[in-house]
């Protein structure tokens, strides 16, 4: 089974995790249209993406960098780690 490196629990089988959607920031002071975009719409890219993942057994949220074509998990980040990288970008 494919394994995923959880920043809190180390390598675990991917069946222990729940996919949580594309990484994106909540809209601020936004219209209903922006909210619909945020809630329903996706980039759904074929390639390298950043996503929310959740370790179900320990209720732990983190960010994973994944290739949606080759089915490879490239890296995982704690939320704090990822947000500091995002800020510097």
């Amino acid at each position, binding site marked *: 089974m494919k394994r995923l490196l959880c920043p809190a629990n180390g390598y675990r089988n991917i069946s222990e995790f729940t996919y949580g959607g594309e990484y994106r920031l909540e809209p601020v002071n936004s219209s209903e249209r922006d909210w619909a975009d945020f809630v329903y719409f996706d980039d759904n*890219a*074929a390639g390298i993406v950043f996503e929310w993942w959740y370790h179900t057994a320990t209720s732990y949220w983190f960010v994973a960098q994944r290739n949606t074509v080759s089915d490879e998990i490239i890296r995982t980040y704690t939320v704090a780690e990822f947000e500091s990288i995002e800020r510097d970008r």
Partner: protein
Amino acid sequence: MPFDLIKNGLRSASARKPHFSSARDLKKHYDVVIIGAGGHGAAIAYYLAKYHGITDVAVLDKAYLGGGNTARNTAVIRSNYLTEEGIKFYRDSLSLFANLSNEFSYNVMFEQRGQLTLAHSDAAIRNFRWRAEMNSHFGVRSRLLDRAEIRELVPSLSMNESARFPIVGGLWHADGATARHDAVVWGYMRGACERGVELHQLTEVQGIDISDGAVQSVQTNRGRVGCKIAVQAVAGCSSLLAQMAGIRLPIKTFPLQAMVTQPYKPLLVPLVSSPHLHVYVQQTSRGEFVIGGGSDDYPLYNTRSTLEQKESLADGTLELFPFLAQAKILRQWAGITDMTPDYSPIMGPSPIKNYYLDAGWGTWGFKATPICGQTMAQLIATGVTPDLIRPFDLERFYRFQALDETGATAASH
């Protein structure tokens, strides 16, 4: 058709003609360019030519006719959905399916064997009662069955009360059917080609040219093709193609894995589905058991197979049909499903003028082939969205009017 068989059977040389237009140069311009030569693309082309006299049409495909998800689905045809909009839409599709073989003079092997969905909990029974009422109201045959009726209907099904999830009842959909998916797309494409439509295989769309907010042409690996109207019907890469036109869609793309056993003598007539066990099983007319399930747990553009998904399919199947324990798996594969938030498709206009969407077909695309083709053709020809598909437009997500069919989708997440 049977007379042709006798006539040609007695001849030494085959009198068969090619069904589809053979390879030729792309023209510089077409009235309508249909992107994707699957069942939907072929059906749109067919109805455009048949009912609207629009034959200056090119159907483009990056690979070959019917080689994508048209070939990968498990050929379930049913209309026992939950919303008024969904029930009416799939009901009309089923009635078109029933007449396809006659219409094409081409056997699509439509078999109305009925479809049985199993309940393993009181919550499922409540959902089935609701669906049965909604279905009956709109003229779709659905009714609740108790255990004794299920035993009578499907003697090969295990009704073991000490099973992990015993069967407590079922939703019987007498209209449920199956058909040969390849024959459906071949029949549509042959009918379209006979009326002058051009099929261009190995022609990949790589860009979409837009000016003044309207589609002007598509760029392909064989050059630029101008068009008055373009429509995308590319299940499995809807988001990627739409992105070329600058359109973002409410779709997440997942693989769905299926498999087929060795053939057995005929012993299972209806199509049997268990949403709770995430599995559905039917026996094909050549005896193989087709086993399908829910989509994978996370999005992916890859038809790879995983052992855990195959184990899960086998696990659910053996709970229903324990005699299959010794069956050999002959083939396994995956299709690519474009899942929408409400498990309903997206049909209609897009933010780009003259660019139409036929997308978001998740796990419910094959059964909609005829009606989607007919209504999309009407939209393209008249510019007016037919009432039947108006609720399925992309804008519904901005109106917060989702058409929630998650509870009526055979094996959902």
